[in-house]
């Protein structure tokens, strides 16, 4: 198990270097010269050239990349072109918000998806299964901005139970933090929930037809133990895979939902950076997001090793 884990971790390092290189190259290919933008509308050619040199844009591509990556490994992702903040600082400001939102959304999703998936799998083909299948189809096809606006209209405006927009840091007020997160967490969580329910229903109902489940029943193990322990551990692999995708996606910042609810997370930061052509900021966000996705994938991979003993050997 330990060698398996070490091998997985070792595989991440070349991957993250490749991603960072790709990101750096791609962003520099975006049309438009940030030096022109920064130097201002009425700048002379000399001023623009001076700005270019100040930003290091006159160096060769590889020198630029090297300067950037060697800073990045020390935690310095550069300076925002438009604000006084460092890229690292901005990301560190925003990331806890996105992390909280993700955790809340995943909690909502799992609290609904696990019971719903089990019920559907146990009653495959009968009405509880059909009801769950219908609801998951709706959940998957519903756009999150629409669901978000709907929730705001019903639960914030028509009956003001939750605030429509805004975010309260956890350090300020725990209750206010939770209160603000409910609607966005449900908005994000329901789509995730639908995906997970569908996956769990499929894999669990397959597993429940396996011989070893019959063995467990024949040995007199209680119905609940058979499903939850013997069934779920085997059914979990595809579910964890989907959950990993979703968490990676959410941690990268859910742009639309953060916008709808006015939450200052990574997604909000990213959209600003793109609109302002704040290249160091874009690079920093993409590399950090990519690293997060890889980290989540690592956790998913390690969970495979726990869930399926065969994986540990290969």
């Amino acid at each position, binding site marked *: 198990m330990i060698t398996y884990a070490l091998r997985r971790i070792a595989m991440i390092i070349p991957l993250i270097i490749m991603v960072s290189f790709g990101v750096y190259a791609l962003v520099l290919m975006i049309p438009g010269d940030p030096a022109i933008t920064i130097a201002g509308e009425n700048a002379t050619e000399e001023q623009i050239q001076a700005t270019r040199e100040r930003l290091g844009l006159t160096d060769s591509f590889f020198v630029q990349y090297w300067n950037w990556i060697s800073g990045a490994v020390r935690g310095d992702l550069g300076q925002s072109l438009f604000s006084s903040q460092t890229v690292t600082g901005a990301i560190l400001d925003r990331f806890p918000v996105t992390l909280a939102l993700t955790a809340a959304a995943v909690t909502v999703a799992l609290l609904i998806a696990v019971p719903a998936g089990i019920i559907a799998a146990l009653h495959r083909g009968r009405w509880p299964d059909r009801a769950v299948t219908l609801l998951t189809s709706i959940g998957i096809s519903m756009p999150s901005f629409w669901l978000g606006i709907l929730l705001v209209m019903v639960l914030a405006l028509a009956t003001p139970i939750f605030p429509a927009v805004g975010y309260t840091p956890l350090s300020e007020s725990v209750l206010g933090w939770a209160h603000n997160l409910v609607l966005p967490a449900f908005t994000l969580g329901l789509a995730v929930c639908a995906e997970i329910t569908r996956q769990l229903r499929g894999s669990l109902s397959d597993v429940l037809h396996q011989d070893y489940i019959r063995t467990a*029943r024949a*040995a*007199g*193990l209680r*119905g609940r133990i058979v499903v939850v322990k*013997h069934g779920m551990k085997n059914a979990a692999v595809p579910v964890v895979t989907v959950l990993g995708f979703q968490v990676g996606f959410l941690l990268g910042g859910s742009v639309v939902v953060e916008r709808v609810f006015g939450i200052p997370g990574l997604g909000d930061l990213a959209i600003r950076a793109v609109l302002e052509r704040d290249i160091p900021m874009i690079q920093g966000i993409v590399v950090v997001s990519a690293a997060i996705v890889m980290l989540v994938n690592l956790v998913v991979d390690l969970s495979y090793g726990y869930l*399926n003993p*065969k994986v540990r050997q290969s």
Partner: protein
Amino acid sequence: MTAMSVAPGTEAPVLEVTDLRVQFATDRGWATVVDGVSFSVGRAETVGVVGESGSGKTVTSLAVLGLLPSPPARVVGGSIRLGDTELLGLRRRELEEIRGDEVAMIFQEPMTSLNPAFPVGDQIAEVFRRHRRCSRSRARARAVEMLGKVGIPDAARRARAYPHEFSGGMRQRAMIALAMCCDPRVLLADEPTTALDGTIQAQILDLMRSMRDEFDTAIVFVTHDLGVVADICDRAVVMYAGQVVEKAPIDDLYYHPRHPYTEALLGALPQLDGGTEVLATIPGTAPTPGALPAGCRFHPRCAHARPECAHPTESAADGVALRWLSDSVASRCVRVDELRLRGAR
């Protein structure tokens, strides 16, 4: 129709199945797949339940444990008694207490019958702990002890291994350890050797025999293989199309079969001295539960069939009744008194 089919004079059986009837839902309504099956098994005795696939033998064994999937299956009549306890009609919780503790079961597929996600020893310990409510360490010790008993070398270490690290024969040994860990009164074995190589098969049969003798377990051995039945069983019940067609002690069944279906099964056994002889087969296929022939259900495939075989007998409105020929042999053949059937060669 065969309510009185327990042979008189036998000691009180451990498990007694009487006139069991099981139906399955089909597109054309309920089909009866087990039709009045009766048999019993005593302490330390092994009874074979023999038949082709679709004869209802596996359904019968699953019904004993209440493991039939419902829907589509339903038990519509009969009785399954474990000692003094009637198992039919027990609530699920009560059945769960009996399963694995008093009645255990092993299955055909050793490769898939153990849970791939848990160590083998843990799976045995879990069953023991569930029924005996003992400490974890006691259950773990029992698992190692059982693995040792079934002949797994270095049992303490192997108990921590996962099923995929075991060979097929080893897995079936582990399955037997799991089934026997609570010292059950009855072991239902559903084709436990069918998926194994010949030599492994013989080892597993030896193991089952020694476990039976050590624990005084009553074994119901479900198989299609008369050769295996001869090897391990004291008596056998031959099933065809959901009914018992013959029951007899093993030597009688082998050398003096009293039903043409048994004769045909014996004829289909491979002969070691047969040399160039082509393996005999039974012509035709077994009827499906929705479309049973009138009279004797075997007559369309029977070498000895006469026109009267197609008519129901007076004693059974929908077919031919099972008739006791002695206190231990019964046959469902109309012509049983006139036929001289050929036994094993």
